[in-house]
């Protein structure tokens, strides 16, 4: 059982390495990997695909900056944030936006497990803790 799980993780990591080109997940490589699995149907293919999907999702999350905002945010501002994050992490970071009225005003940027925030709600929370 443990040996099978280890084998599945090893296969998923190998497929993931094949899917990354220059530190970026390549859609073409991913399509090729999926075709290979569909044709060859290795043992425990479903479990291997789940592990592969988790690795790809983690890698894509590392390359994506989720920008939560309250109020309008301009494209140049998003571009500046993407540029800054790309420079900081050393890989291409793209931005996606999502409205979050709880912020009241300001932005919250999430890259992987890292969170950067400059919002009214965070300042109020800081004020509440410091009192």
């Amino acid at each position, binding site marked *: 059982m443990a040996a099978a799980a280890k084998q599945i993780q090893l296969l998923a990591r190998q497929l993931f390495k094949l899917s990354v080109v220059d530190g970026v997940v390549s859609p073409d490589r991913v399509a090729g990997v999926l075709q290979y699995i569909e044709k060859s149907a290795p043992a425990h293919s479903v479990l291997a695909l789940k592990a592969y999907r988790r690795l790809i999702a983690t890698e894509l999350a590392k390359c994506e900056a989720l920008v939560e*905002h*309250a*109020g*309008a*945010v*301009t494209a140049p*501002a*998003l571009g*500046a*944030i993407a*540029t*800054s994050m790309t420079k*900081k992490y050393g890989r291409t970071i793209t931005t996606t936006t999502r409205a979050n*009225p709880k912020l*009241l*005003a*300001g*932005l919250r*940027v999430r890259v992987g497990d890292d969170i*950067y925030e*400059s*919002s*009214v*709600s965070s300042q*109020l*929370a800081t*004020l*509440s803790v410091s*009192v």
Partner: protein
Amino acid sequence: MSLLLATTDASSKLHALQTQFGIEGKYLLMQVISFSILAFVLYRFFFKPVLATVDDRTRKIDAGLKYAEEMKAQLASTQQQTEAALKEAQQKAQVIVAEAQKASKEFSDKQQKEAIERSASLIAKAQEAIELEKKKMLAEARTEIARLVVATTERVLAKKLTDADRAGYNESAARELAGV
């Protein structure tokens, strides 16, 4: 001559006396012998046992007196020993009583000291608990006040902030985050 005459005179007087009182030498000798026999018999069969009995009783009386004296001396000695023992026992009893009183006083002092220490500790703990409770209440009150202030501020800002205000704040936040 005169001496011879005097001796003859004395002898005649003695003869006259014997004749006058009827003293016969042979009777006198027989009486002496019978008296000696009587004296011997009396001594042998009467006085000797009586004297032995008297001596025995005398010895017994002496022994009794001696025993009484010894008993008296022993009684006196016993009384002295008893008095000494009583005196010693009294002294020991006094020592024991004194030690008991001392131990009782020490125990009482120790108990009193421990009670004072316990009460002081309880008072200190109570004061500490009161202080902690006070600090806790103040902290809770401060936290609650801060929460109310923040909640009120959020509500006010949510109503009062315009889209332009939010856009301006977002631009500022973007510049801040881009400079991270």
